[in-house]
């Protein structure tokens, strides 16, 4: 049995489509090659600026509409950096809406259970405040006014929940907290490339959903950075990802669309190659199941600038804190990076699979998830060490290698937005 496990990573020869010798800085000369500062990773003041300059201006993903299968299905979402919570709910007209999760009577958080900082989901036909029993319909309108004769004028009947603009990208829900309303639609914000990128994906078949979250003592951007380059895999995950060492640790060129980006990991994993027994018997690995699902995913066409048939994963990063990943031969992962403080964050992962047709497929999916989570423990474990190192301020700037150009781009996008907001403040326009 053991002799089928390939322990020597050098045995793999991988076709890379000629992309591995690419020098990213030549493709994106505007990004430069200078050392960069992580001031906005270690500064409480930057955290305050990010609230206004980024999270109150960008479209923010809060989940997928499959969590809302029926009229009245809802979930709440805590968005700590905005000091708010929202309710996302499917109305009687089937439309999904978002509302600030606050009762307009006395300001009590409306939907929660047990601990007001925890998220809640369920199904109901109206939201009742725990404090005085006022009830709000699924469209946010006042529905049940307690003691109607005791209110002044129309102050009671005028109480309605405050709606938050919400739009859907292939079922993935985004909200926008821009003062006065969004300056652009979600489609305009994403750009045509990413907006259309999932058109060929059979998303309706992705009915199997697992989700997890964790809190880490690091800035939210530090995890974004970790998941924006594959170079660390060869060291941090060298034991757990040995079968992939020669495949994904040199990235083909990234496509940038404004602050967003599309990145491809290419290569092929030979069908008979496994780096340990569990991978072999489960037919899964850190890239998830290796059994093609009922409808295998074709390489998302929009991801490729040129012909590229061998691919492992495509990652769409929607600024500021959402990543959508498609893995060959067929599962989907999303990451959300939620700032809690300048040095604390919550990480959320969602995995979607097509319905398994037999036990072997289910076993590959579940074991793939377990292997992914072991790798994620390694990633998360490193973050606090990075935060501690950066906060010691031993260095004021740091180099990035060519392979880390996505990080260079991301931090440039953050810096630009913080600077623009500061200029607005200085000019009295914010």
């Amino acid at each position, binding site marked *: 049995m053991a002799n089928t496990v390939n322990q020597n990573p050098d045995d793999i020869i991988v076709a890379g489509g000629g992309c591995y010798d690419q020098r990213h800085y030549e493709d994106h000369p505007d990004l430069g090659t200078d050392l960069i500062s992580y001031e906005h990773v270690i500064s409480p003041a930057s955290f305050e600026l990010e609230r206004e300059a980024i999270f109150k201006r960008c479209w923010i993903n809060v989940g997928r509409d499959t969590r809302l299968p029926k009229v009245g299905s809802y979930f709440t979402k805590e968005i700590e950096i905005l000091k708010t919570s929202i309710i996302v709910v499917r109305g009687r007209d089937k439309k999904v809406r978002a509302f600030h999760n606050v009762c307009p009577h006395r300001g009590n958080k409306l939907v929660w259970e047990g601990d007001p900082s925890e998220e809640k989901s369920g199904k109901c036909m109206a939201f009742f405040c725990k404090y005085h029993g006022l009830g709000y319909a699924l469209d946010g309108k006042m529905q049940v006014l307690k003691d109607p004769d005791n209110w002044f004028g129309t102050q009671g009947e005028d109480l309605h929940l405050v709606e938050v603009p919400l739009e859907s990208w292939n079922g993935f829900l985004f909200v926008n907290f821009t003062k006065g309303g969004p300056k652009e639609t979600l489609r305009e914000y994403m750009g045509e490339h990413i907006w259309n990128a999932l058109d060929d994906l059979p998303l309706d078949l992705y009915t199997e959903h697992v989700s997890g*979250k964790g809190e880490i003592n690091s800035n939210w951007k530090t995890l974004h950075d970790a998941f924006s380059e594959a170079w660390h895999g060869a060291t941090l995950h060298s034991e757990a990802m040995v079968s992939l060492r020669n495949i994904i640790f040199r990235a083909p060129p990234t496509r940038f669309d404004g602050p967003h980006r599309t990145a491809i990991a290419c290569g092929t994993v030979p069908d008979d190659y496994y780096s340990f027994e569990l991978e072999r018997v489960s037919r899964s690995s850190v890239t998830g199941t290796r059994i093609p699902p009922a409808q295998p995913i074709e390489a998302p066409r929009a991801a490729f600038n040129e012909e590229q048939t061998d691919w492992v994963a495509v990652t769409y990063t929607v600024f500021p804190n959402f990543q959508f990943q498609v893995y060959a031969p067929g599962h989907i992962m999303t990451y959300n990076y939620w700032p809690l403080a300048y040095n604390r964050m919550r990480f959320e992962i969602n995995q979607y699979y097509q319905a398994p047709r037999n036990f072997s497929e289910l076993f590959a999916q579940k074991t793939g998830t377990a292997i992914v989570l072991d790798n994620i423990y390694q990633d998360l474990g490193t973050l606090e060490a990075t935060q501690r190192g950066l906060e010691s301020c031993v260095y004021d700037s740091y180099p990035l290698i060519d392979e880390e150009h996505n990080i260079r781009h991301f931090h440039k996008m953050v810096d630009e937005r913080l600077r623009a907001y500061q200029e607005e403040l200085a000019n009295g326009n914010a």
Partner: protein
Amino acid sequence: MTLPSMFADLERFGDKWDLPDYNARYEARLTSSMDELTDFFETILNRIDAIKAYLDDIPLTEYSDEDKCLARLMFAFGVVGPAVEIFRTQRVPDSGATSFTMTLDTDIA
């Protein structure tokens, strides 16, 4: 715990490994000795072809309680594997400060 009769010899793992979800499985991995993990992993590994062949023959929606127990042992095997084969210790190295919980984990009904 009762397993399909041809796998009755694996019932000795039931008390520890017939668990409902990933969180419980990872917790059991952390609180087991490496000897326990290795015994469980290697024993299942030796029977895995027969287990998969047996469970693959039954539509997922028609599992008996015994079949579901067997499936849950296999899912635990998948969580235990990296500890035995890769890390040779229960906890993922250097993950001491990390808290992570699965909040939605579809399992065999």
